[in-house]
């Protein structure tokens, strides 16, 4: 009775291999909900791929991957002198590569752990974390003068999602890296298209470019992934019949379907997609309209057609309304669910 992610294993693994082969120096990213697969599974898959480094989002995620992948662990959230960063398992200390984005943190980390391994993050147009060009130069001087033995593992760039070409930004950022005269030739980048990556590798062939890839790696072969819920119950209703937590009434005669998958899985808790197209915004408006009259389109589809929620999703199940006409599925049948993988927790992940 589960919300299940079924993975066409051969296809998925072939895709993972292909990405690894076409992206030398690949650093898989396993963070958050593990893109739906769970962090542990991704850690094992990274080990299977044979990469030397796995990136996680936060220090809290380290325990989920550390025993399943025995290479280096890059933490993407910049190190701060408080919180989970200070509570890591000492036995992992030599495997963790910290991300640093502030001069104070650089000094602080090296005071605490002189042999700490780290990358310096250069702020990009994302404006999230990282050093400005001048701060990077200052950090370089600091390392040169005060910590000549520090274990700098590279520069990190976290680029925004593509909107036109990144190359002019990358060019400027790389120029700042050259200007800093840091004792490293490794650059960790994310969110470059393959063409941009190829161009970067060509003009910076004297640098070691390490692409950090999450979505494109784990979710890049969408047709190898299938999400299904189970029909748990079917009830016939007449117009006006009351049902559900809130005792709504049926708008017309049809069937109520109880399917597995609710708020605990992330069903109905859609994160904004960030899609800025007119069409997407119109769709959002339309969904809001349905909401107002009590009908929200659900991510569950039966025989290829998306069905409406009969009421807001429950914690582990959802109620759908199926008007008279279409085929009524039977209890135990599987129905398709369209989800955002990074926001969904599956009960089961079945990899063939």
């Amino acid at each position, binding site marked *: 009775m589960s919300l299940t992610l079924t993975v066409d294993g051969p296809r998925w693994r072939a895709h993972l291999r292909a990405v690894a082969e076409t992206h030398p120096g690949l650093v898989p990213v396993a963070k958050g909900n593990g893109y739906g697969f769970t962090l542990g599974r991704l850690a094992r898959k990274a080990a299977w791929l044979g990469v030397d480094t796995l990136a996680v989002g936060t220090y809290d995620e380290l325990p989920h991957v550390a025993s399943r992948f025995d290479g280096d662990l890059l933490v993407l959230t910049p190190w701060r002198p408080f919180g989970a960063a200070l509570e890591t398992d000492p036995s992992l200390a030599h495997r963790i590569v910290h991300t640093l984005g502030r001069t104070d943190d650089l000094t602080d980390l090296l005071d605490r752990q002189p042999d700490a391994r780290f990358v310096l993050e250069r702020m990009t147009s994302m404006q999230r974390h990282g050093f400005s*060009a001048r701060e990077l130069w200052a950090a370089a001087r600091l390392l040169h003068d005060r910590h000549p033995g520090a274990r700098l593992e590279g520069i990190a760039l976290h680029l925004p999602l593509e909107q036109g070409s990144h190359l002019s930004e990358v060019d400027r950022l790389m*120029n700042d890296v050259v*200007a800093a005269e840091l004792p490293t030739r490794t650059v960790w980048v994310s969110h470059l298209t393959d063409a941009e990556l190829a161009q970067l590798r060509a*003009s910076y062939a004297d640098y070691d470019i390490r692409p950090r890839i999450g979505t494109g790696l784990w979710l890049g072969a969408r047709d190898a992934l299938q999400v299904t819920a189970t029909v748990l119950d079917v009830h016939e209703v007449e117009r006006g019949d009351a049902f559900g937590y809130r005792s709504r009434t049926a708008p017309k005669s049809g069937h109520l379907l109880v399917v597995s998958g609710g708020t605990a899985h992330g069903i109905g808790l859609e994160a904004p997609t960030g899609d800025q197209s007119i069409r997407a915004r119109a769709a959002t408006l339309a969904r809001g309209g349905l909401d107002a009259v009590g009908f929200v389109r659900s991510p569950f589809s039966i025989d290829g057609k998306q069905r409406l929620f009969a009421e807001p999703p429950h914690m582990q199940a959802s109620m759908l309304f199926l008007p008279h006409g279409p085929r009524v599925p039977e209890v135990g049948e599987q129905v398709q669910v369209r989800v955002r993988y990074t926001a969904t927790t599956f009960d089961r992940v079945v990899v063939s």
Partner: protein
Amino acid sequence: MTSPGSALSVREISPEEHLAFLRTRPSASFLQTPAWGQVKAEWRRESLGWYDGGQLVGAALVLYRQLPRLKRYLAYLPEGPVIDWDTEQLSAWLTPMTAHLKKQGAFGVRMGPPVVTRRWTAAQVKEGIADPAVRRLGDLPPTERDATGARVVAQLHELGWRPQVTEGGFAAGQPQYVFQVPLVDADGAPRTEEDVLKGMNQLWRRNIKKAAKEGVEVTVGSTDADSKDDLEAFHELYVHTARRDHFTPRPLSYFRTMTDALTNEDPDRFRLWFARHDGDLVAATIAVRVGTHSWYSYGASSTEKREVRGSNAVQWAMMRDALASGAHVYDLRGITDTLDSDDSHVGLIQFKVGTGGEAVEYAGEWDLPLNRALYAAFDLYMKRR
């Protein structure tokens, strides 16, 4: 990385002070000498000095190019200014400069920071031309990236300067990419003639040898103001070359002015070179030197008797002369950044690459608009020209 002790100030200086300052430096672009201002007589010129307290610490030649019908100017500092580019406080140098230029009626400033950003060896360039996947110098990893140059580029972006892109062929201004033969080794010790010769490709060495065997004679022409015959001989061959190679020649008067201005400034600044075979002029060139930097500036060659290799002979003579005068660099000046073997410019690169040496990328030319509307109009005019 140094920074000025106190606030720097900028004011006009005399050409004499300007020249005296340049003499305290190992070298500067010849386009930054007071004499070059005289060559570009159609523009108003000004010598600028940077003062740290009472001390002159930087200088520039500014050429004011007037907008049609308006008393507003583009202030142009070709391959300059001559300041401490190895600083993280570039604004301390540039801000007082731009304030001064604005007061002088400039609507925008254009300059070419004389800082190197990347270098490629001749061997790499050669491989790049042979590799169809490589179309531009930038597609090749350089042998050297210059951190000082990178810091200048980063700071210019930060300060609102705009790089003038040089897509494909030659830019309108000074070339961003040049080809240079280093005349000193990595430790700064002078190279020997044998060493420089060994760095050339086989074809160059063979051609130099052949010229000698054919009896090509290389001489230095006279730049005496009273005897203009040599300059006329150069110019005649240069006009011939221009007709053959389809470029517009400059008039003899331009070279007269150049000869007089540069020679008056320093007798070693300017040199005319001739290669003759049985009395026939087969090649002629102009070499320019400022301190330790020696340039091959203009060249001309005959269509007849190409087989005696006068061009190679005269180049080799200029290189030897540069070596003898203690120069650190022999500069063959502009190349395009194209390494596409189908591009018509690639032949020029191949000729220069044969000398050994390296392709050098400078920071390029940068503009700072001071009056946005006038600058935008000027920019549009330049693009449509």
